[in-house]
């Protein structure tokens, strides 16, 4: 316990000095009379891996869409990457990367064609793209698969490639929506190696997942219940607070009382 | 039986809860009918006509008067020489020139035949053919009525011979065509889409592992669309009859029976499409490209089959709507009975049987 307390102090000192890349103040989103997000407050720091958890229908997707500039909030103050969600949605989009389990890459295009396409979208110059493509393929050990169709790659490779492509334009923040569904435990961890690496390079990772052990890989975790953030802290402290051995227990204790069956 | 009704009920839920389906089912048929009906009738109105009358006798003047009073033509001018014909076409305003040979009435009375030349501007071939056919129709009509008492059979020999659309009203022609097209669209496309949707959703897996037999699944899918298509056929006929004044000369019962046969054929075709399509999009494309376009282009609905190149004429024999349109025209416009359309009916029946056989065989009890 003594060690833990030192740990938090160190943590606090570091976080307060760090740059806030996402700031959310009193975010409210209503659909008619239904309140999907009820006064959310949180901030995410540069280089942090931020786990965004919640039961189905707790309002995760809604909040994530708002942060990505895909949907506008009913009220509240939000800034993402230093840009205002209401007025600077375009700049936000340029500074974030997004990857979801469903959205992968174009299956009927080759690896290189996909890279070229996304580089094109973000206006990366040909010279830069060629260099990035080389580094990326080398890192993924996909040099031989350069001209293979995405459809022919195993799911794990697709996910790693999709993640790398989402990083192509050097975004400050990367949103990952259940990125590791359906792969074997080794591939899943290899994917997390990528996430750690990106975080170590100063990228901010905002991730949702249904794997509770993955929640423990995050620096901080927020758990949404019924449109509210019911808990937000490091996995370690959450486990202490809820007297639970693992995050699964924390999650179950919090989400059990949920009202929204949706 | 209870299973079957449960299935049908579920299909109706799907149909009535989807706005798009409802629009395709009921909005589009009516809209298309109105569109074709009005657009086509306007098209033939007030076409500019020039006449080179070398005879200027009673008969030619009567024919001219008859043409101009039909409402389809406006007299642009009388021409004085053959050279004028080309010149006036080049200006583009006049769409048709009528040339009566000298001594028209005399020749007609003496020899029982006389020549009138119908020259149409074929830069819009369809329009040209339509105009020419209207003209010859009106002339023939006149000769039949006015000169009918003559013993000798009268003959006019227009340069262009076009015998479709004897009724003279274009909408008469289009009602059977639209009916064939709409019934094909609804029956084939909607069934194939609704079956492939279950494949996409994964519910087909559950239906397959249930005690339902394939025939029950097929019938359950077909029954609601059969009912709706029959309603549609009736609506089209009623609108055609009451709004556009298309005569229904033959028996309503025969007309509906033939329609049901055609609908059944199209439904089987839809099931067949669903067995080869993986998802709704494929089913839709196949229905659109393999069924809709040929129905419009090759069935004689818009482009007369007689004027098609031979290979296309041969292909048109394979188009079910072609036969259905013949049947409809015969029963609706000519008022003929079953005896005159049994051949076409048989062909449709044969097609329905073949499609059903293939569909039932191809409808798999398993995935893949």
């Amino acid at each position, binding site marked *: 316990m003594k060690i833990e307390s030192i740990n938090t102090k160190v943590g606090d000192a570091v976080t307060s000095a760090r740059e806030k890349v996402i700031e959310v103040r009193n975010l409210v989103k209503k659909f008619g009379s239904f309140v999907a997000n009820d006064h959310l407050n949180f901030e995410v720091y540069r280089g942090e891996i931020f786990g965004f958890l*919640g*039961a189905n229908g707790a309002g995760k997707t809604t909040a994530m869409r708002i942060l990505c500039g895909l949907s506008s909030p009913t009220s509240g103050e939000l800034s993402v990457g230093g840009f205002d969600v209401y007025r600077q949605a375009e700049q936000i989009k340029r500074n974030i990367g997004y990857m979801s389990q469903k959205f992968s890459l174009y299956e009927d295009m080759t690896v290189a064609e996909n890279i070229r396409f996304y580089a094109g979208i973000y206006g990366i110059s040909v010279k830069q793209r060629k260099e990035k493509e080389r580094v990326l393929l080398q890192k993924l050990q996909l040099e031989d698969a350069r001209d293979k169709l995405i459809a022919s790659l195993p799911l794990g490779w697709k996910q790693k490639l999709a993640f790398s492509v989402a990083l192509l334009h050097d975004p400050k923040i990367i949103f990952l929506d259940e990125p590791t569904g*359906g792969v074997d435990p080794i591939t899943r961890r290899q994917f997390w190696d990528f996430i750690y690496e990106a975080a170590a390079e100063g990228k901010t990772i905002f991730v949702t997942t249904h794997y509770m052990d993955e929640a423990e890989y995050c620096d901080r975790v927020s758990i949404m219940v019924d449109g509210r953030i019911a808990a937000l802290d490091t996995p370690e402290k959450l486990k202490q607070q809820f007297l639970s051995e693992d995050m699964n227990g924390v999650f179950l204790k919090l989400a059990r009382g949920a009202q929204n069956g949706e | 039986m209870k299973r079957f009704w*449960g299935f049908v009920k579920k299909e109706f*839920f799907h149909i009535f809860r989807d706005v798009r389906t409802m629009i395709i089912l009921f909005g589009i048929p009516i809209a298309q009918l109105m569109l074709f009906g009005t657009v086509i009738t306007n098209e033939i109105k007030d076409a500019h006509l020039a006449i080179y009358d070398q005879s200027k006798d009673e008969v030619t003047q009567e024919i001219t008067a008859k043409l101009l009073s039909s409402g389809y033509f406006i007299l642009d001018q009388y021409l004085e020489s053959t050279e004028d014909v080309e010149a006036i076409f080049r200006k583009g305003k006049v769409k048709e020139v009528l040339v009566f040979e000298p001594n028209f009435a005399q020749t007609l009375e003496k020899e029982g035949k006389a020549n009138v030349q119908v020259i149409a501007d074929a830069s819009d071939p369809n329009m040209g053919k339509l105009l020419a056919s209207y003209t010859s129709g009106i002339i023939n009509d006149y000769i039949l009525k006015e000169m009918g008492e003559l013993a000798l059979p009268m003959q006019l020999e227009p340069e262009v011979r076009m015998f479709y659309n004897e009724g003279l009203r274009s909408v008469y022609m289009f009602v059977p065509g639209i009916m064939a097209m709409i019934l094909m669209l609804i029956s084939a496309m909607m069934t194939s889409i609704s079956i492939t949707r279950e494949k996409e959703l994964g519910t087909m*897996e559950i239906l397959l592992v249930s005690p339902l037999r394939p025939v029950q699944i097929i019938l359950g899918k077909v029954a609601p669309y059969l009912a709706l298509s029959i309603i549609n056929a009736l609506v089209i006929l009623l609108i055609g009859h009451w709004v556009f004044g298309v005569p229904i000369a033959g028996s309503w019962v025969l007309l509906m029976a033939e329609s049901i046969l055609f609908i059944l054929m199209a439904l089987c075709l839809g099931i067949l499409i669903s067995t080869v399509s993986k998802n709704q999009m494929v089913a839709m494309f196949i229905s659109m490209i393999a069924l809709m376009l040929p129905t419009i282009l090759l069935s004689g609905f818009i482009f007369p089959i007689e004027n098609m190149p031979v290979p296309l004429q041969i292909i048109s024999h394979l188009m079910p709507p072609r036969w259905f349109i013949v049947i409809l025209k015969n029963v609706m416009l000519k008022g003929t009975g079953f005896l005159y359309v049994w051949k076409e009916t048989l062909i449709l029946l044969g097609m329905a049987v073949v499609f059903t056989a293939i569909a039932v065989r191809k409808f798999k*009890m398993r995935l893949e």
Partner: protein
Amino acid sequence: MIRVNNISKSYKDVQALQRISFEVQEGELFGLIGPDGAGKTTLMRILMTLLLPDEGQAAMHGLDVVRDYKEIRQLVGYMPGRFSLYQDLSVEENLAFFATVFGTSIEENYALIKDIYQQIEPFKKRLAGKLSGGMKQKLALSCALIHKPKILVLDEPTTGVDAVSRKEFWDMLKKLQTQGITILVSTPYMDEAGLCDRVALMQKGEILRIDPPEQIVANYTRTLLAARSTEMHRLILDLREWDSIDTAYAFGQFAHVTPKKEGLTAYELERYLKTKNHQQLQVHQIAPGIEDVFMALIVGNEE
């Protein structure tokens, strides 16, 4: 109750199942555990008589899956992946439809589904498409149970569903098991393996191991150490760099470390990590979980 003997199946150029054999006893809760592409769905579809095997035989309740497909379809309840429900039908209508299709009614078998259905009954007028993942899952299970099947085949019923719903779902399965229903369930979540009586660990069309979960863990003899420090990423990189280490993977807030030679002690590992300047080190030996074993099996299988 379920007997699978040397079943193989391939699509075009992919070998989906390679000579799979196993048996499931009456009243057993049997799990097929493995990632996407392991062949779980193909295997279930063969058992559900929806696909024909290339080779081998399989029987459900003594009925051959190829020959007696009609009888099998009567006595098995099936829940395909992605909760196959009619999105434009309400909860009640979905259930009623599947009941009539199987020649029964909701009232007739209400007792069996009561516990599950009661949880979604307040929403029975709601369209299935508007339900949350957990509720869809419950409705799909109710639909699969409506004809009182002897065997229940569930293809990844917990994928994409939150932890609470997953927990509730497994509780329901346990309850059904006590009513004598044999259950075959597949899942990509390793932590759900422990909830089954026996599991088959699958990877790339092969079964790596079949045993009760405790047995699988007990049979694992290699040394396993857990380590943590303030910097997880650097910790793993440092571990992998050391040539005494075979594998190092993140597990929650710890890294699980398999040394190359047996008997590497926690003390030795800690000493090494200290040389790498890791702060607040914690290292100790641990007992493996299913996931550890599975990962070791995958690595072993690929070599």
